[in-house]
C-alpha cells in the first residue's frame, strides 16, 4: 500500500512542470479511487493522511537537490509504464483462465468445490474423445496449470477490494458452468452412438486385417465378429455380416473339411497337424454359426435382401465347401420370392452354378436340381416361372445316352474273355502262386483307390452318373408340371380364367425346357410325353361340336405342338412316326387365333416347326393347310399374312400336285379323293376337300397395301405357269418366324409417322388466329375518319358481315344435304353388291 501511494506522489511532483496536460488525467483517476476507498474504509483513510505528509516532505527535498538524478528517474518510470502496458495485453488474452483462477484463489470451500466440478467436466470431455485427441488436450491442460500458478502469486498481492468484484463474477461463472454441463451431456449422448459405430467399424477392420494376414493364429477372433452381429443397431449388424462375408470368402480353403474318425483322433499327431485341425474345427464352427445367423435374419424384412446376397455370394465362391446343402436350400426357396431383386440374385447364382461345374464337379448341380424339384412339389406347381427357367442353363454331354449302349455291348465280350482266361489258369496254378496273385491284386486295388482319391478330375463314369441323376430330377419336375396342368384342366371344367397364364405359371418354361432337352428323353417315356402333350393341346378323338374344356390359351396349346415336334425330330433316327394328331390340332388352332389375345410369334414358330421345317408331308393334308393359310392371310395383318404366305409357298414347292389349286379349274378329278366340295370349317384336314377348291385369295393379296405381301403373292401365283420341276425365283429365304418379326418391327417404325398429324392440326389452328386479327385492324382503320364517314363505313361493314354469316349458313346446309345424298348412294351400291354376292353363291352351289 505504501509503495503504491509513494509512486503516485512522485508522479505528481515531477510531472506538473514538464507535462501540464497529463496532470488532469492523473488527478481524475486518483480522485475516483480515493473516493471509493474513503467511503468503504474510514480507518484506512486516517492512516493514509498521516503517511502522505511524511512522503511529501521527503520527495520535495530530493527534487530540489538532485537535478540529474531526477532526469534519470523520469526515463526509468516511462519505461516501466511501457512494460506495464505490454503486460496488460496478455492478461486480456488469458481472461478465461484468469477467471477460473480467481475462483480457485477463493478461500471459501464451497467455491473450491465448484472449481473441482469444473475440472471434472474437462476431464470427462477429454476421456470421451479419441486417444490422440486426449493426449493433445492433456498437454494443453498442463500448460494452462503452469499459467494458473503464476497468476495466483500476483493475485495475492492485489488489494482486498478486488475480492468483492471477483465474488460477483464467480457466481455468474458458476451458473454458466451448469448450463454448459447439461449441453455437454447431450452432446456426449449423441456422440456416443456414432463413436460406438466407428469403434466397432475399426474393430471389425482390425480383426479382418489380422485374419487376412495370418488366419491360422487369429482364427478365434471370428467369434468376436460373430458377437458383434448380435448388436442392437442394424447398421452394425449389416456391416458385420458383410465383413464376415469378405473374411470367409478369403479364408475358406479349396477343399471340403471332413470329420475326423475315432482312430485318427486317438493317434498322436505333431504340433502342426494339431494346429491345422484346431483351425479347421474353429472355422467350421464359426461358419456354421454364421450361416444359422443368416438363415434366421432372412425371415426379417430388413435383413432378407442382405442375407440372401451373402448366401448367394458364398455359394458362388465356395460351392465345394461344407454346409452347401443348407445354402442351396435357402437359395432354392428364394427362387420364387416375391421380391424381384432377391429372385434375380438367386437365379443368377444358380445359373452360374450350373455353368461352372469345375469348382464342385457337378455334385452341387444335382443337389440344386433336386431341391428345386422338391420345392415345385411342395408348392403344387404354383411358383414364379423364373424358378424353372433356371434349368435352361444346365448342360449335359451329348454322349450321355450313347456310352451306355457301348458299355452294354462291351460287357459280354469281357465276360467271355474272363471265362476263357479263368479256365487255363486254374489247372497249373499252385497254392503259393494263388496267394501271391491275390496279394498283387489287392495291392493294385489299393493303389488305384489312392490314385482316384488324389486325382482332382472326375472319372467319366462318375460324371455320367451325376448327369443322369440331374437329368432324372429335371424330367421328374417337368412331368409333374405337365400332369398337374392336365389334372387342373380336367377338374376345373368350363371355368373361364380371366388371366390365361395364371393357373399354369410354370407351363411355358417347362415346355421350353422339354424342347431343349428333347434329345435326352428316354424312348420309354416318349409315348407318355406325347400323350400328355396331346391332351394339353386340346386334341380329342371325337369331332363333336362341343367346346373344349381345356383352360389353356391358344399360345400354350401351340407351344405343346411345337414341343412335340421338337421331341419327335430329335429322335428322327429312331422313329418313323407321323404326328397326325398334332397336325390336326394346328389345323384347328389356326381358326382360333386372335391377334390381340394370342401371341403371333408363337403361331409363326408353330408354322415354321410343323410345316416349313417338316420333311414329310401328306399331299391331302398339305392342300388343306395351303387353303386355310391363304384364308388366314386375308383375315389378319401383314405380319401374319407374310408368315402364312411363306409357309404356303414352301408347301406348294414341295407338293407339285397341289399346284392344281392355282388353276381356275374346280373339281380336281381323281385327286379330290371323294370329297367334292370344300368345307372351310372342317376339323379334319383329310375331309376338308381342299383339292376341290381354288386359291382365289392370292389374287386379292396381290393388291395388298403392304408391298412385301403383294410381291410374295404374285410370286406364288407365277408358279402356275411353271413346270412341276421348276421353282419360282425366291424373293426371301426367311422362315415364317423371321418374316413375322421383321414386319412387326416395321409396324413400330410406322407409328411415329402418325404423330405428325396433330402437328398439321396445330398449323390449322394457327391459321385461324390470323383471321381473328382482321376485324381489329378494320376497327383501327375506321377510327381515323370523321363521324359521318364512320357511320357510312360501319353500315357497309355490318351489311357485309350479315352477308357472310348468311353465306356460311347456306353452305352448311348445302354440305349437309350433299353428305346425305352421298350416304344414300353408297347404301344403294351396298345393296347391289349384296345381291350380286348372293347370285354368285347360288352359282357356286349349283
Amino acid at each position, binding site marked *: 500500500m505504501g509503495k503504491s501511494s509513494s509512486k503516485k506522489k512522485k508522479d505528481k511532483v515531477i510531472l506538473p512542470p514538464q507535462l501540464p496536460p497529463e496532470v488532469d488525467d492523473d488527478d481524475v483517476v486518483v480522485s475516483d479511487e480515493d473516493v471509493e476507498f474513503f467511503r468503504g474504509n474510514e480507518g484506512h483513510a486516517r492512516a493514509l493522511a498521516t503517511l502522505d505528509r511524511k512522503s511529501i516532505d521527503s520527495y520535495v527535498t530530493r527534487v530540489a537537490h538532485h537535478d540529474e538524478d531526477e532526469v534519470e528517474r523520469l526515463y526509468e518510470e516511462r519505461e516501466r509504464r511501457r512494460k506495464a502496458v505490454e503486460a496488460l495485453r496478455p492478461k486480456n488474452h488469458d481472461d478465461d483462465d484468469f477467471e477460473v483462477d480467481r475462483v480457485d484463489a477463493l478461500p471459501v470451500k464451497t467455491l473450491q468445490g465448484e472449481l473441482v466440478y469444473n475440472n471434472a467436466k474437462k476431464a470427462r470431455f477429454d476421456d470421451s474423445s479419441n486417444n490422440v485427441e486426449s493426449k493433445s488436450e492433456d498437454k494443453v491442460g498442463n500448460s494452462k496449470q503452469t499459467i494458473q500458478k503464476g497468476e495466483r502469486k500476483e493475485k495475492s498481492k492485489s488489494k482486498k477490494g478486488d475480492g468483492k468484484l471477483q465474488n460477483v463474477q464467480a457466481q455468474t461463472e458458476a451458473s454458466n458452468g451448469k448450463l454448459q454441463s447439461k449441453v455437454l451431456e447431450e452432446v456426449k449422448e449423441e456422440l456416443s452412438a456414432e463413436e460406438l459405430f466407428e469403434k466397432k467399424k475399426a474393430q471389425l477392420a482390425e480383426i479382418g486385417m489380422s485374419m487376412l494376414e495370418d488366419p491360422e493364429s487369429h482364427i478365434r477372433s471370428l467369434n468376436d465378429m460373430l458377437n458383434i452381429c448380435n448388436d442392437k443397431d442394424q447398421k452394425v449388424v449389416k456391416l458385420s455380416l458383410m465383413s464376415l462375408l469378405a473374411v470367409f470368402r478369403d479364408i475358406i480353403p479349396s477343399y471340403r473339411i471332413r470329420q475326423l474318425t475315432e482312430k485318427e483322433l486317438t493317434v498322436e499327431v505333431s504340433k502342426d497337424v494339431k494346429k491345422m485341425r484346431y483351425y479347421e474345427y474353429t472355422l467350421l464352427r464359426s461358419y456354421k454359426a454364421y450361416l444359422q445367423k443368416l438363415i434366421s435374419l432372412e425371415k426379417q424384412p430388413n435383413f432378407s435382401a442382405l442375407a440372401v446376397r451373402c448366401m448367394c455370394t458364398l455359394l458362388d465362391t465356395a460351392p465345394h465347401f461344407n454346409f452347401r446343402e443348407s445354402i442351396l436350400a435357402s437359395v432354392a426357396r428364394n427362387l420364387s420370392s416375391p421380391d424381384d431383386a432377391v429372385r434375380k440374385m438367386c437365379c443368377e447364382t444358380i445359373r452360374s452354378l450350373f455353368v461352372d461345374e469345375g469348382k464342385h464337379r457337378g455334385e452341387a448341380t444335382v443337389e440344386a436340381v433336386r431341391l428345386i424339384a422338391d420345392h415345385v412339389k411342395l408348392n403344387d406347381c404354383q411358383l414364379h416361372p423364373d424358378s424353372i427357367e433356371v434349368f435352361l442353363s444346365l448342360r449335359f454331354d451329348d454322349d450321355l445316352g450313347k456310352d451306355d449302349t457301348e458299355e452294354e455291348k462291351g460287357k459280354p465280350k469281357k465276360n467271355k474273355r474272363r471265362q476263357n482266361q479263368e479256365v487255363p489258369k486254374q489247372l497249373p496254378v499252385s497254392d503259393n502262386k494263388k496267394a501271391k496273385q491275390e496279394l498283387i491284386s489287392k495291392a493294385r486295388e489299393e493303389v488305384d483307390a489312392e490314385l482316384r482319391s488324389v486325382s482332382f478330375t472326375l472319372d467319366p463314369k462318375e460324371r455320367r452318373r451325376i448327369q443322369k441323376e440331374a437329368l432324372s430330377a429335371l424330367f421328374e419336375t417337368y412331368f409333374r408340371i405337365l400332369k398337374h396342368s392336365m389334372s387342373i384342366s380336367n377338374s376345373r371344367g368350363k371355368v373361364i380364367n380371366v388371366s390365361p397364364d395364371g393357373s399354369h405359371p410354370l407351363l411355358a418354361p417347362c415346355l421350353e425346357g422339354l424342347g431343349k432337352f428333347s434329345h435326352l428323353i428316354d424312348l420309354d417315356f416318349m409315348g407318355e410325353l406325347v400323350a400328355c402333350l*396331346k391332351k394339353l393341346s386340346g386334341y380329342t378323338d*371325337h369331332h363333336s361340336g362341343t367346346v373344349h374344356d381345356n383352360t389353356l390359351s391358344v399360345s400354350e396349346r401351340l407351344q405343346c405342338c411345337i414341343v412335340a415336334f421338337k421331341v419327335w425330330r430329335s429322335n428322327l433316327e*429312331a*422313329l*418313323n*412316326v*407321323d404326328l397326325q394328331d398334332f397336325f390336326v390340332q394346328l389345323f384347328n388352332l389356326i381358326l382360333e387365333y386372335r391377334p390381340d389375345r394370342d401371341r403371333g410369334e408363337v403361331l409363326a414358330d408353330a408354322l415354321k416347326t410343323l410345316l416349313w421345317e417338316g420333311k414329310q408331308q401328306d399331299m391331302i393334308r398339305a392342300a388343306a393347310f395351303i387353303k386355310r393359310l391363304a384364308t388366314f392371310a386375308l383375315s389378319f395383318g401383314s405380319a401374319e399374312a407374310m408368315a402364312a404366305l411363306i409357309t404356303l409357298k414352301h408347301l406348294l414347292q414341295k407338293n407339285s400336285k397341289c399346284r392344281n389349286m392355282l388353276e381356275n379349274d374346280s373339281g380336281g378329278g381323281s385327286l379330290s379323293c371323294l370329297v367334292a*366340295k370344300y368345307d372351310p370349317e372342317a376339323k*379334319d384336314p383329310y*375331309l376338308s376337300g381342299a383339292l376341290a377348291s381354288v386359291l382365289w385369295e392370292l389374287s386379292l393379296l396381290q393388291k395388298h397395301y403392304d408391298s412385301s405381301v403383294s410381291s410374295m403373292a404374285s410370286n406364288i401365283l407365277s408358279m402356275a405357269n411353271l413346270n412341276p420341276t421348276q421353282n419360282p425365283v425366291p424373293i426371301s429365304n426367311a422362315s415364317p418366324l423371321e418374316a413375322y418379326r421383321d414386319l412387326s418391327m416395321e409396324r413400330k417404325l410406322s407409328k411415329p409417322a402418325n404423330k405428325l398429324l396433330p402437328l398439321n392440326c396445330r398449323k390449322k389452328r394457327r391459321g385461324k388466329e390470323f383471321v381473328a386479327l382482321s376485324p381489329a385492324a378494320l376497327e383501327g382503320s375506321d377510327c381515323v375518319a370523321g363521324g359521318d364517314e364512320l357511320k357510312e363505313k360501319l353500315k357497309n361493314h355490318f351489311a357485309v358481315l350479315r352477308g357472310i354469316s348468311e353465306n356460311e349458313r347456306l353452305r352448311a346446309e348445302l354440305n349437309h344435304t350433299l353428305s346425305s345424298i352421298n350416304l344414300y348412294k353408297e347404301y344403294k351400291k351396298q345393296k347391289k353388291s349384296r345381291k350380286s354376292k348372293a347370285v354368285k353363291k347360288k352359282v357356286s352351289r349349283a
Partner: protein
Amino acid sequence: MRALDEKETKMVFEKLFKFTGPNLKHLLERPAVEGPDPQAGRYCLRLHKNRVYYASEALVRRATAVARPRLAGVGTPIGKFTHGGAFHLTVHALDLLAAHARRRVWLKPDTERSFLFGNSVPKSSLARITENTKANDGVVVMSMADVPLGFGIAARSAQDCRKADTNAVVVLHQSDAGEYLRREEELM
C-alpha cells in the same frame, strides 16, 4: 335288294369303325354327290346277293325299278357276307377307307410291289406310321406319293415297331389294289 337288319348293320359298322373311328359318322352323313336328283340326299347301305353296297338314296330309289335277278349292283360294294355269316371288307372299299382313315402306313418305294402281290409289311419296308397306332388297329397302306395301296391290321403298335427286328411283320395284309388283277372273276 333290301336294307340291312340290326345284326348285319352292327357287324358292318364294327368293321368300318376299326378303320375310320369317329369319321364313320362323316362317312354316313356326308351329302351325296351321285345321282340326278337336284337335292343332295344321304348315303345308305343295301344288301344284294351277300354283298353290301354303299349308295346314295337317289340311286337306291331308281334301282328298285329293276328286277332282282337282273340287278348287278348299286353304288360301291364295300364288303360281303360269307356263308358262315361273317363280314369281310373287299378292295372296293379302299377309296372310302383311305379318305376317312385315322391310321396310315407309308411304304418305301422299292417295297410297294411286294405288298401289291399280297405279302404282309415287314419293318424294313416301313417308311412312316401314324403315331399312337395300337396293335389290331385298322390301317390303310399308302405309297410315298400318297396313293392308297390297300389296307390291313397293325400287328404291332407304333412304339413297338421301333424295337422290332427288321424282318418282323408290322402290318398284316388284308386287301390290296393288286386284287383287281389277281381275283378279277371273284370281284366281278
